[in-house]
């Protein structure tokens, strides 16, 4: 990752490989430690999805966090402008402007937001913006033991995420809602 990470020419995305996820929850621990997430709340999580019928059963794990939508419903409904979209597409919260009406929590189809009682504001995954601005990947990506989480710039054709998406079939969650989410899942 190079400097000037906030350039509008960037499009930060996650590419998840569900087949590599073993539900160890290390990403959740890393995130909570990195972002001092209050106990009981999480900025990222893992969906366990069962497929098939007995006896042909299998389980797939979909790691998830805020999708940093290009068309974010949370930003649209925010009455104070506390939730905003940065030039590079990150959806962030101005904790001072957030009065905690929780309207964004109603609007998010991914349930990515929680009330941070310590900040008395609504909070969520920031794609580890503080690390990103220093040229580091998000903590969950760095810690992922199965290498299921990939992060990078979709507008850079040589990035790992671009190459993964170019060579694999992928899908996004609730794409049909028009949110333009920035987390891609490799088809299993």
């Amino acid at each position, binding site marked *: 990752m190079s400097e000037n990470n906030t350039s509008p020419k960037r499009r930060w995305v996650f590419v998840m490989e*569900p087949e590599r996820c073993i539900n160890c*929850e290390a990403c*959740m621990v890393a995130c909570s430690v990195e972002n001092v997430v209050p106990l009981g709340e*999480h900025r990222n*999580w*893992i*969906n*366990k*999805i069962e*497929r098939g019928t007995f006896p042909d059963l299998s389980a*797939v794990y*979909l790691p*998830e966090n805020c999708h940093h939508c290009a068309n974010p*419903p949370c930003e*649209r*409904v*925010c*009455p*104070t*402008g*506390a939730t905003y979209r940065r030039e590079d597409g990150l959806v962030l919260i101005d904790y001072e*402007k*957030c*009065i*905690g*009406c*929780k*309207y964004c*929590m*109603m*609007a*998010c*189809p991914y*349930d990515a937001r929680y*009330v941070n*009682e310590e900040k*008395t*504001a*609504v909070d969520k995954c920031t794609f580890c913006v503080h690390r990103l601005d220093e040229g580091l990947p998000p903590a969950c990506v760095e810690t992922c033991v199965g290498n299921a989480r990939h992060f990078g710039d979709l507008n850079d054709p040589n990035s790992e995420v671009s190459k993964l998406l170019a060579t694999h079939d992928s*899908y996004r*969650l*609730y794409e049909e*809602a*028009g949110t333009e989410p920035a987390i891609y*899942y490799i*088809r*299993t």
Partner: protein
Amino acid sequence: MEHNTVHFHWNMLIVFYLFTAGMSAGAFFVSGLATYLGGARYKRISRIGAMVAPWPLSLGLFALIFDLTKPFEFWWLFLTVQYTSPMSIGSWLLTLFSIISFIYLILWIPRPWRDLLRVPYTLADLTHLRAWKPLNRRAVGIARRVVAAIGAPLTIGVGMYTGVLLGAVTARPMWNTPMVAQLFLLSAISSGVATVLLIAAFIHPKGDHDHLHAERHFLVSLDAMLIVLEIFIVIPFLLHQTLNTWSSAESLNLIMGGPYTLAFWGGVALLGLLIPLAIEGFELFPVIWQEQAVKYSRLWGGLSASLVLLGGFLLRYVFVYAGQVSHFLPLYVR
């Protein structure tokens, strides 16, 4: 790790606020309508509506503000206008409506007390406080009509906003239909009528009884009409949600066998719509079929009005709570 467990981040405070905002808007609307349609004939209900209008909303706004994680920083709402946020537009609407409704209240204060309010009649009087005079009858009459006319679109706006607030949320299939705003608007006006009806039934009636019959006729027929219109929305709402996407149909199960079935069918539909409509129909029956006047009855007026208010509250309860449970379809792996 179960992520999608339901938390009710919007609770009874929000239900109370949506209900009281509607009640205020409705009371103002009825008062204005009575002023324009009936003039002196409906003066008593115009006055009751005007006296009531600002208060429920004021209480509701307290509830709303204390639901915030930062109650004392609500003023951030008023540093900006976010055009895509119903809550932002609504905050401004409510503020405007509150101001108008308090002005309207002052204009309806009865005679000896109203004269305490003095205004300058000419520009030259502006600087001479002693020259200020109480409002005369004609000026008050005009002012009431003007303020009622300014307030009318605001009442519609407030009534509609309480529904749009929910309806604008795509992620909650139970809310995401224009019918919620329509239903909330009609229910808001209906609860305003009911509030006026309830108070009119219990404060000591002065003057001739023809007056009371006439105003009762006005209120009861207005409310009956509103209830019928509400039913005309509830039925298509049920049909459309069933025939809509799978997640909409799933969300309807919350009131069709799910945890909110009793509150919706027993509370909203039966107690809040059908029984009051039956009572009002019973009251209106002699008017329609025997060409008699509506009888002024405390029992029936008080009962139907109380039930309408209960139903209006439960309607908001069901939608706020069940709506938060409603969700897009569960994730599946492709």
